[in-house]
């Protein structure tokens, strides 16, 4: 993501004592419109007086403030969020483990690139959500636990279906793969040649030059990939056949017209997406600082 544009300094506005908004502390300025939005929403909800259509802000807050309470018999908000997160992270780890090495090979080997690329281009335009029905048909509701030959393990793995992992894998595949290829292909010959004249072996060139040089691009791929994976899992959980997860909870509360739960789920989905993105962004900023500052 692009760095946020720096706002003009507000130093002199205080001296000239400009009236109104400019006198507000800078940190508060960003809260005005969201606050206004909530007020308008609340007023609208009170005026409509139809909680099955527009819930009150306070009702949504009540759900959010009790995240461990069981909701309409489907487990708590926290539980369903964790289930969705574990699904995403499992599928995402599989995608990383497959796509990063594959991308590195494709970025370094022209033959492999020529062989695999048509396949990549063939599947790339296909929206990962389109894979969901196919995945459900093929994998049914087989869970990770069943993969190990047991029906129930009393762990969260009982709620992680292979089909879910499959579609998250597809969601993460292209951003991770393409960014990795791009990153590796962008490693300057000058750097690898420098390593060679300093007696680095092939393995050392890979670990000490190609990988660190490509890492910023790889992390960008991971960040985009995790965002897509999070969107895809919500969609997958909303379809029939799902039995838990935040996407399931949002759909189920829709069917029961429990709009305060539905909106609370939306808030959680948004916040989790933000957190996943931010987490990787912080990591990526730390690793990629040289890339941004390089001449």
């Amino acid at each position, binding site marked *: 993501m692009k760095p946020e544009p720096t706002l003009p300094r507000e130093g002199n506005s205080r001296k000239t004592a400009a009236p109104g908004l400019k006198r507000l502390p800078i940190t508060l300025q960003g809260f005005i419109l969201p606050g206004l939005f909530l007020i308008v929403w609340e007023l609208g909800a009170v005026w409509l007086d139809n909680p099955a259509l527009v819930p009150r802000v306070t009702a949504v807050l009540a759900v959010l403030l009790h995240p461990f309470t069981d909701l309409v018999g489907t487990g708590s908000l926290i539980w369903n969020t964790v289930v969705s997160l574990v699904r995403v992270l499992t599928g995402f780890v599989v995608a990383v483990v497959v796509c990063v090495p594959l991308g590195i090979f494709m970025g370094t080997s022209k033959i492999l690139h020529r062989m695999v690329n048509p396949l990549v281009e063939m599947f790339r335009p296909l929206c990962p959500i389109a894979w969901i029905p196919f995945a459900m048909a093929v994998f049914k509701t087989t869970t990770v636990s069943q993969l190990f030959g047991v029906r129930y393990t009393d762990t969260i793995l009982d709620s992680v279906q292979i089909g879910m992992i499959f579609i998250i894998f597809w969601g993460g595949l292209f951003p991770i793969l393409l960014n990795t290829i791009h990153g590796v292909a962008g490693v300057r010959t000058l750097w690898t040649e420098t*390593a060679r*004249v300093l*007696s680095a072996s092939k393995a050392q060139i890979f670990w000490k030059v190609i990988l660190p*040089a490509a890492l910023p691009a790889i992390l960008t791929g991971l960040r985009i990939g995790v965002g897509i994976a999070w969107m895809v899992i919500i969609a997958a959980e909303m379809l029939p056949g799902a039995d838990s997860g935040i996407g399931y909870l949002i759909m189920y509360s829709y069917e029961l017209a429990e709009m305060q739960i539905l909106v609370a789920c939306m808030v959680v989905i948004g916040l989790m997406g933000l957190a996943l993105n931010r987490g990787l962004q912080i990591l990526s900023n730390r690793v990629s600082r040289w*890339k941004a500052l390089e001449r």
Partner: protein
Amino acid sequence: MMETLELNGLSKIFNAPPDREVVALKNVDLQIASGEFVAVIGPTGCGKTTLLRIIAGLEAPSCGAILLDGKPVIDLHRISTLVFQQYSLFPWLDVLGNVAFPMEMKGIHKKERLKRAEEYIALVGLTAFEKAKPYELSGGMQQRVAIARALAHDPEVLLMDEPFGALDERTRHRLQKILLQIWQEKRKTILFVTHNIDEAIYLADRIIIMATEPGRIVAQKKVSLGRPRDRLTEKFTKIHLEIRNIIEQSA
């Protein structure tokens, strides 16, 4: 002095499509004594960079051999290293990490290699910048770090491909002085490619003059001036004119 590095009939032919061959180097013979400072000068396209890349082991010669003490060299990367004209520091490593890099490749223990890297950094006068990242340094400083890194590889032969070519004149003169100091202290064999006649005379014991099409050696010139050299002396200018004449005649 014993002749250490010997180039025997080195040629390099590149295939240029369609069905054309470019003779980048033709039959280059050269002996370089241990500890000698040799400059290679010539117009663009005379194959001086190709020559350096072959000795550095980045390019295989089409024919010919490179001998060290009379024996063919098996691993050129072990005996030589190359300082590029472009800024070649690894931008994700700080100065210390860059200079320690060749020792890391050799598997030297971390504590030991950092200690030695500090010594090499001190040699180029950048101790205050050990923790700096390459993008925080000026071009001249980056090349000083590149030289320290090359020395940390501890090669028999230091190859330099117009390392000061991208620097302004004042910085270039300063780095030339630093390089001579290091050379006198470490007694490395240096093969220094440049297109700057002044630089070649200021630095080298001997100047090799090359010409194009095909890339070849046309003349050699010993510089028998005491160091430090003064660019404004008559002798210096005389050599300068001689070399310029040779280059112009062979063009």
